[in-house]
């Protein structure tokens, strides 16, 4: 330990001591002494499963690659979340019967005892605003809104009867990503990096990219670490300007000096850890070190300008803008570099029909056009790089949309639109050991409710973890006296779509 660092530690200790007063001592006496006694009792219990004494946490990198429960087929995940919830009835769930009912009053049987976010009174049924065809060898129904995706239908596995119990965006997104509609639980990407670590120590294990403009309604909690150490939280990267904010050295600060200062801070942190054993300190040390390494690696990975022209053409990127296509290309680059979990959030899919941008007949169509090509390009690009079989792609929203036209406050909406629908919607998965050209689950003739192959967000989470090699019931973290897991007490691996 160098002299200067010693001084920093002494200073930190002095500051800490100055804050402890006599009053403090008496206040802490009761709980403090009790906790000390308890600590010495529990200390013998090999608390963290460490084999070699108390410092094992300090000496291991929390992001070091770990072995999963069993050999997984997927190494990484790209989760494409279309926030707002795209209409399954205009994309994948073909319902010719619904077309026949277009414009008729919705039968009471579908409304009794149901709650909708905006529909009031008796809405009209609304036929699909799309032309459907069967695609590929598998004969999956995909509408003309997604002409590119239709060409790769044989790579996809559809889940046609996904259900949720949340009809508002925020809670439904949280449920999808953290396993509960309330705040405070770790997101799936955090669980995965907690379980698997990172393949590339110079990059975060869990990266989040949003399409610019708007974050998801549920806010940053959908990629939060909850009660897991914060080193596992999703790192949001920006696709324009500095990819990660505040990572550049300030002017006049050389890289050597930066390294020296980080070393000194970390040494002080290590000493503090010795005293308090707070795992968050280990996180902080790891984060300082990672930030330093990321300074070099991140700008390089996050720069799509070095990609050849044919790749840009394939994805339909718009260099210099924060847009979905750029993010999809970035996702491919990150996965190629060993990032475990890339979470993409797009927005603007909330097609209520209240305004042009949120209309099934306008905004929705434009969203399809802007995302169809990049998503398809991602599949094909991963395939030609030999990465599709080890990269799991998940595409979906937080819920579906009603077979009825929305009538906000009982009045006809100015544009074609559908309300939030929890009882049936479509999610697809591809790559990562998932069956190719397969469809599981069915909805009734008008796409209102699921009739077979129902799955929930928990089943989807269990399946994602399964593909990575985890038994979702065993990937747990002890917190507040019990072992928590992503799927809580639910979840079933959807073996029907596992290859």
């Amino acid at each position: 330990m160098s002299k200067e660092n010693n001084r920093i530690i002494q200073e930190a200790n002095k500051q800490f001591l100055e804050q402890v007063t006599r009053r403090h001592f008496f206040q802490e006496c009761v709980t403090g002494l009790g906790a000390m006694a308890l600590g010495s009792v529990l200390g013998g219990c090999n608390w963290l499963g460490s084999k070699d004494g108390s410092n094992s946490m300090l000496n291991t990198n929390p992001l070091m690659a770990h072995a999963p429960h069993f050999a997984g087929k997927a190494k990484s995940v790209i989760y494409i979340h279309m926030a707002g919830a795209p209409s399954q009835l205009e994309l994948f769930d073909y319902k010719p019967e619904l077309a026949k009912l277009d414009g008729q009053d919705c039968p009471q049987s579908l409304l009794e005892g149901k709650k909708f976010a905006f529909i009031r009174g008796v809405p009209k049924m609304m036929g699909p605003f799309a032309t459907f065809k069967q695609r590929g060898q598998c004969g999956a129904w995909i509408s003309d809104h997604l002409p590119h995706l239709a060409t790769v239908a044989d790579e996809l596995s559809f889940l046609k009867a996904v259900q949720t119990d949340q009809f508002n965006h925020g809670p439904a997104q949280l449920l999808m990503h953290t396993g509960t509609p309330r705040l405070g639980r770790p997101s799936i990407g955090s669980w995965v990096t907690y379980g698997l670590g990172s393949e590339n120590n110079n990059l975060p294990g869990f990266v989040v990219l949003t399409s610019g403009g708007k974050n998801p309604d549920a806010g940053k909690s959908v990629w939060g670490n909850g009660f897991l150490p914060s080193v596992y939280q999703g790192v949001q990267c920006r696709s324009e300007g500095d990819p990660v904010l505040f990572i550049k050295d300030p002017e006049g600060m050389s890289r050597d000096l930066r390294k020296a200062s980080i070393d000194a801070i970390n040494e002080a942190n290590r000493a503090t850890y010795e005293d308090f054993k707070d795992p968050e300190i280990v996180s902080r040390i790891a984060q300082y070190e990672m930030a330093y390494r990321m300074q070099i690696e991140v700008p390089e990975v996050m720069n799509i300008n070095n990609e050849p022209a044919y790749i840009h053409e394939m994805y339909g990127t718009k260099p210099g803008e924060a847009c979905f296509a750029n993010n999809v290309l970035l996702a491919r680059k990150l996965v190629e570099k060993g990032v475990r979990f890339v979470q993409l959030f797009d927005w603007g899919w909330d097609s209520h029909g209240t305004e042009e941008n949120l209309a099934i007949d306008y905004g929705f169509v434009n969203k399809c056009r802007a995302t169809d090509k990049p998503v398809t390009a991602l599949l094909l690009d991963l395939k030609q790089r030999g990465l599709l079989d080890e990269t799991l792609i998940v595409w979906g929203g937080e819920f579906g949309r009603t077979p009825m036209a929305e009538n906000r406050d009982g009045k006809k909406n100015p544009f074609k639109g559908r309300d939030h629908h929890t009882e049936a919607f479509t999610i697809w998965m591809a790559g990562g050991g998932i069956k190719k050209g397969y469809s599981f689950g069915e909805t009734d003739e008008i796409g209102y409710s699921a009739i077979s192959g129902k799955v929930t967000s928990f089943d989807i989470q269990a399946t994602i973890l399964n593909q990575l090699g985890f038994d979702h019931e065993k990937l747990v973290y002890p917190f507040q006296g019990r072992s928590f897991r992503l799927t809580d007490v639910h979840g079933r691996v959807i073996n029907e779509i596992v290859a």
Partner: protein
Amino acid sequence: MITEFIAHFHPVLVHLPIGILLLAIVFHWLSTKEKYAQLRFAIPTAYLFGAVTAAMSCITGYLLAGSGEYDETTLNLHQWMGILVAFSSATGYLFSRTKNINQLKWVSVLLLILLTVTGHLGGTLTHGEGYLWKSFPGAKNDSAIALKPIANAQEAIVYKDIIQPLLQQKCYNCHATTKQKGGLRLDSETWILKGGKNGAVMHAGSADSSEIYKRVQLDPLEEKHMPPKGKPQLTEQERLLLHWWIASGADFAKKSKDMQQPAAIKTALSSLEKAEVVVTKRLDMPEGEAPKASEATIASLRKNAITISEISQSSHWLNANFVNCTKWNADIEKQLASLKDQMIWLKIPGAQLETTAWKTIAGLTNLRRLSAEHSNISDQDLLQIASLKNLQYLNLVDTKITANGLMQLKGNNSLTNIFIGRTNISRQDYISLKTAFPKAILDSGGYRLEFIATDTQTLHPKK
């Protein structure tokens, strides 16, 4: 009903006589020793409490038996043994009061046997036949019987060959000889038609109104869902077949071919002809187990920014990613070579290696997956790699290799996936390569997406 309420205390109460009487027996035996002689004063009281709680257990047990959900023979035996326990403990009380110690010895031995047997019978009633040995190592596990493949599903008798095995596997535990929950038995035609205490469970011809189907179809979180939470559930296919059988009249004798078969049923039937549990062998994993790799070697490779870990917690096979280590020194080569028994998946994207390093890789004979995309691998290096006879996945995207180079791997029959996009392999070479590697998928990449005008246009209402 109040009796039913009281009856439910039986499973709690039974533990009192067991504990108290065992304590009485222990006291009795200990009291023969000088040191514990004073314990004998406690013996009569212990026997008395034991007798009283045993009697209470008998009464609640009798009320519970009235629910008629249990196997009669076992129940009868359990009942009489229980009554015997109550009587013997009362006798024990009387003997202990009269200081008739010699006879009390025999009573205690009898009680010990009775308690064990009665308790075990009670356990059998609640947890099912053979519950005790179920998790004993080496014991046969009933619930693990998978549906046996049927030679010809069309010739099969639907009830006997398809539905009955399904019921046996998923329902008999609670609805057959040992237990009849809800008064329902499903282990023969008569019982199925008879239904449970709440009436018929099956309406032939109408599956959706049949309780037996409704229950399996319910949300698994609902209390009435069957089989109960935590028990093995019906698969989607089994549900489909059950629905089909009931909907087409629930005939107990008909063969599949004599019943109408929608498309989904046809597929479900034909899949019954294959073994139910098809454990697809993974080509990218060797069979058996590897010796544990040296931790020092792994730690030292990690110091060079190499990601390396076991492929699963129950295995010593290794996988490594050299994405941050594209130039190797002699140490790294040596360490990697020493892991040749364990290394099965290796990623070296962008590696710029010397010939010796490629030789090292060629020595990793267990290798199943090699990702060498963007690397400086040459045709000569590829010749070395031909020695990797187990290689199943080979990624050569964006390298300088030619068709002749790849041809050197001809005869390497384990290769199933070869990626050769953006190499010096031309379209003409592709056909000859395809014949050289008949079992492999050769991906030459170069995928393009059609240019569609609407991709860059946005749609707006006409003003």
